[in-house]
């Protein structure tokens, strides 16, 4: 297997805070590698070091076969970067932005190709300030792709977007993946990581706490099935009669999550209990564990906490 990017013992400190605390990982070529974690986990700092915005305090980076302590100007010729919240000159037009960014590279795709890739042909003559949030983000992706990069960094590309805009971004990422580009993605959306990633690396408090494909990570939790529902006025005492038929019960406000190895038995007892106590379930759902559950299992917290 070849790797587009290899990171070894990367460290970044801000005063006493270890924003990134000696992490190592390998990103296979032509894959989507996702760093998943809550806000403040160190995802953006990691990416900023790999993008050349910040210098690491320690560690080693091997990018597209070249070892470096910090990202060189030559390496940037082959990189594409979508920042989490970078801005653009609001009075420039979409085409002008793409032309400007094209001029920064030795090799650039035709602007019309980029406009087509990010579906902004109709907005080519529109000024940046008139674009919607989703359109702006697609333009930013276009600006990150003008040089037809081999390695692309996407830092939380769908944060703050509506579901339709988010889906559009996913389509672009899928298209890039089909073209053989290596993508390093950060997100705190579990479903995004599951939908797009070949490899997921879970970060918390500057460290990597788990790594693998979404399926491998979920499988690591065991064979249990999850029963999820909402119940008013619920506490541990209320659900105590059900503890004998399941592995674990978690309560988060009115949200209840029951882990079980015997779905039929647990469901049967749950329905009997509801009948006897006259409790009404809402949004009852039976599902397999996901990355959110993996994170919860590893840290005791949810991704959004």
């Amino acid at each position, binding site marked *: 297997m070849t790797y587009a990017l290899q990171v070894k013992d990367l460290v970044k400190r801000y005063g006493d805070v270890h924003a990134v605390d000696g992490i190592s990982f390998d990103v296979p070529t032509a894959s989507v590698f996702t760093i998943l974690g809550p806000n403040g986990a160190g995802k953006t700092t990691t990416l900023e070091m790999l993008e050349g915005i910040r210098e690491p305090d320690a560690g080693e980076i091997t990018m597209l076969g070249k070892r470096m302590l910090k990202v060189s100007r030559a390496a940037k010729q082959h990189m594409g970067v979508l920042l989490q919240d970078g801005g653009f000159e609001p009075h*420039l037009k979409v085409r002008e932005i793409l032309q*400007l960014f094209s*001029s920064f*590279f030795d090799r650039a795709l035709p602007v019309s190709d980029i406009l087509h890739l990010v579906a902004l042909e109709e907005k080519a003559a529109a000024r940046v300030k008139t674009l919607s949030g989703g359109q702006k983000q697609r333009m930013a992706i276009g600006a990150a792709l003008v040089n037809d990069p081999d390695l692309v960094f996407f830092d939380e590309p769908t944060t703050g977007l509506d579901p339709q805009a988010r889906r559009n971004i996913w389509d672009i990422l899928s298209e890039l993946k089909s073209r053989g580009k290596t993508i390093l993605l950060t997100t705190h959306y579990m479903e995004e990581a599951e939908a797009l990633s070949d490899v997921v690396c879970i970060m918390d408090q500057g460290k990597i706490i788990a790594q693998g494909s979404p399926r491998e990570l979920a499988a690591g939790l065991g064979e249990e099935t999850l029963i999820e529902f909402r119940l008013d006025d619920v506490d541990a005492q209320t659900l105590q009669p059900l503890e004998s038929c399941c592995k674990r019960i978690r309560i988060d406000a009115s949200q209840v999550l029951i882990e079980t190895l015997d779905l039929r038995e647990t469901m049967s007892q749950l329905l009997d209990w509801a009948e006897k106590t006259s409790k009404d379930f809402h949004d009852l759902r039976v599902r397999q564990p996901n990355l959110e559950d993996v994170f919860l299992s590893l840290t005791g917290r949810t991704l959004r906490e």
Partner: protein
Amino acid sequence: MKDILQLARAHIVTAIRERVTLFWFLIFPVFLLTVLTLIFGQVNQEPTIHFEISLVNEDIASGTDSFSALVESILVQMSMPQPNAETPLFTLHRALHGGSPSFLEAELTALRRGDRAAILVIPEGFHQDILASFAGGGAGLALRLYMSEASITSETAASILEQTLAGINREILVRGGMYDDTESIEAETVWVGQAEDQELPYIDFVLPAIVLMGFFTNGLFGVTGTILFNRDRKVLQRYWVTPVNVPRYLAGFALGHLALCALQFGLLFSLGKFVFGATIGFGDPLTLFLLLLSAVTFMAFGFFISAVSKTANAGMAIANILNMPMMFLSGMFFPIAGLPAFMLAIVYANPVSYLLEGLRRSVGVQAGTLMPAQLTILVPLGWILVSAVVASRKLRWDVER
């Protein structure tokens, strides 16, 4: 190179499309030039209340009770502080023993430099000419008055001197016991500096100042605002993740900024020349160099403010605080010669004063108080150096974490 040109283009296009920038870069200077010219275009005199005047008495040999000595004593009296009176109209510079050719030469140099408003010369034989005129003969009674057309204050001083001469004239007639049939003393005017018999239009006085003001606001607000807002909005951070580095960005930025200044200058010059009839030209190599130096100095000043400001709002606040004092304490709109000492200290630290002085001098429009010519270049260069050092050490190109 294409990246630098594209960055320059982006800077220009953004500035032109942004209404606020467009107003301050182009519309406001044009508006100000128009208003000032329309209001003051008919008034060729500055409201100066104090002059520096020289007296050269070449007729010292006629003695202390001569008419020559009378003229001198009246002028000396007028230049003395009077009890319960305002400051005298003028300070009189004179040689203790009349005036040697070298003294006159030195005073003429001062007049050309703008340090004197006028020079009055009592020619040799003036006393004898008056006596001859009493006897009904003589070749005319003429004092010589040197004026500088390049200085507006010179004309005002000359006008006052002519009124003074009328008074002296009456005094001489009384002393001579004659009330008519006698020649009056006339002042024979000698122009120094500019072409003779040509008044200085107000537009010529104000046009270099407005051009400089435009460059100044471009540098102070345009550069500071663009750099800091682009940093705060993380526009710059988007550039840094590409192969563009700070020197290339700065090259593009500077190119775009200078192009905007050139555009602004072209507009103001066209308006001044073709609408208001300005007679001065800016084609001289020294003038062009000073224009470039001005644009670069004020751009560097914008970098200086950006370097010492944590946010865009803080930078704009500093620019606002500096804007008015630096503009008004430079002699842009009124003479600075009579300012109190503490204000003069600001004037002499202010690079705008030097650039304005140099520019006015190079286009042939001298201001009231002048600095040595070399300082009009050296002081701005010093400011560029200081700004460059501070900016290179302090200016942050990304948002602080």
